[in-house]
């Protein structure tokens, strides 16, 4: 199995060095090979499990409650402006 490491890195929003790309390509292929054993387990008509204790439709009252203040919410941001997170422009002119 060949993995397009550059494409996956883009999806994962990671910038990898060419050394990392090579290393991960090899290791990811090894991991894919390793987990091939899973195909030995027959799963036709087996339902997948995502919520392990079987809880369903957990809801709560939609009421306003005290939450973080604006100052607290911004307290770890490197860049703020007028009480907002400041980020680099996403769209061009």
């Amino acid at each position, binding site marked *: 199995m060949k993995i397009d490491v550059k494409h*996956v890195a883009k999806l994962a929003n990671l910038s990898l060095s060419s050394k990392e790309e090579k290393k991960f390509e090899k290791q990811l292929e090894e991991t894919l090979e390793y987990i091939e*054993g899973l195909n030995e387990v027959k*799963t036709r008509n087996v339902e997948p499990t995502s919520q392990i204790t079987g*809880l369903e439709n957990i809801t*709560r009252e939609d009421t306003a409650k005290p939450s973080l203040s604006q100052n607290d919410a911004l*307290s770890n941001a490197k860049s703020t402006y007028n009480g907002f997170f400041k980020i680099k422009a996403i769209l061009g002119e």
Partner: protein
Amino acid sequence: MKLNNLTIKQAKIGLKKKDFSSSELTKACFDQIKKLEGKLNAFVTITEKEALEQARKADKIISSGQDLPLLGIPLAIKDNFSTEGIKTTASSKVLETYVPPYDATVVKKLKEAGMVLLGKTNMDAWAHGSSTETSDFGPTRNPWNINHLPGGSSGGSAAAVAADDVIAAIGSETAGSIRQPASWCGVVGLKPTYGRVSRYGVIAMGSSLDSPGPITKTVEDSALILEVLAGKDEKDATNSPLPVGNYSQKLNKNMKELKIGISKEYFINGIDKEVEGEIERAIKELEKFGAKIEHIKLFDPKYAIDVYTIIQRSEVSSNLARYDGIRYGSARQNFGEEAKRRIMFGTYALSSGYYDQYYNKAQQVRTVIIDDFNKAFEKVDVIIAPTSPSLALPVGATKDVSMFGEIADVLVEPSSIAGLAGINIPVGFSKSGLPIGMQIIGPQFSEELVLSVAYEYEKLTQSKEWRKLKPNL
């Protein structure tokens, strides 16, 4: 008796009788931490000033005659639990300067129970590993032999408890991260059922698996902490509404009423011979105490490595997507190699066209594993197995091993994948002086049963010579 060597139960009695104060107890812990930290590196952050202040407050409450479950008891918490006003890094450079503006539910409950927080313990970065060697702030060392690893990812918590730096500690387990370091460090580690303890405010790893729990010197202490931690939290929708037991009051169990399942599949190829021997001896002891041993056949745990690798790495890639360096933390290039490797694999497994082949297939085999355990628990009450197939490995063992964590935890992964309750208890030592641990696995929400079996074993083997051993540091 050095105060820092005490268990929670002993410390509570001493505090109540005013044999010593929480301030004295807390200072004794810091003396030990200062003496050993250069060797062990069990902590990321030490909060001495705050702790001494909390201890003084606890002493006031004690003298007023009030009682709380953990009043004045010095604890350490793994550094992936958000602590208001105290740096929380998950041992990653990405969060090196992050100071949470709120407490995880576990932390909030421990504060309400009166604990004194000594500091935040070292771990594999983002909890990705079974060695504490992938911490961006250097590995933690095993107190029993500092050339060996403590296991992980809650390695700092396990080492701190084993070294009597603390009275007890909190860890978290996705698959093995409480039980395996407890095994390698010779302490008690409880992984509660998924959903028994709130995940709110814990830096997420595998959200369908993550289970916070106690790491302690005794089973009784484990029960005491679980009573504080367990219970409904509306901030975690996967948290169970089932009532919480009086775990510490229900530790006695008539061993003659107990059916224990043993599965050959858990004594895997390549298992350390001394580990195998000690577990077999412990099982014989349980039989001597009256328990009925039944040989059962469990689904081969090797498939759990595949299931766990896929589910966990997929969920990791999703959970770590939020770290953009904008709201908190630093940029994504600061992720260490292990985190990048897991993000890359998880992103690939979830990418367009591969979902059915990997994540969905793994979730189907997850159902197969659950059904297999359900069948086993029709025949037996609990299952006993080695926690780790090896003794604590030497420092450096994980270097360039791309699936170290996932493979090392083969024996704890199936029960984690099925969301079961499990506990590691020490059963002896190797000739080289490294601890050996046994796990007791029960059905979901069987904490009371699992703790009581562990407690009976601990009680019935209390006079063994090996129990008197302490790390020589």
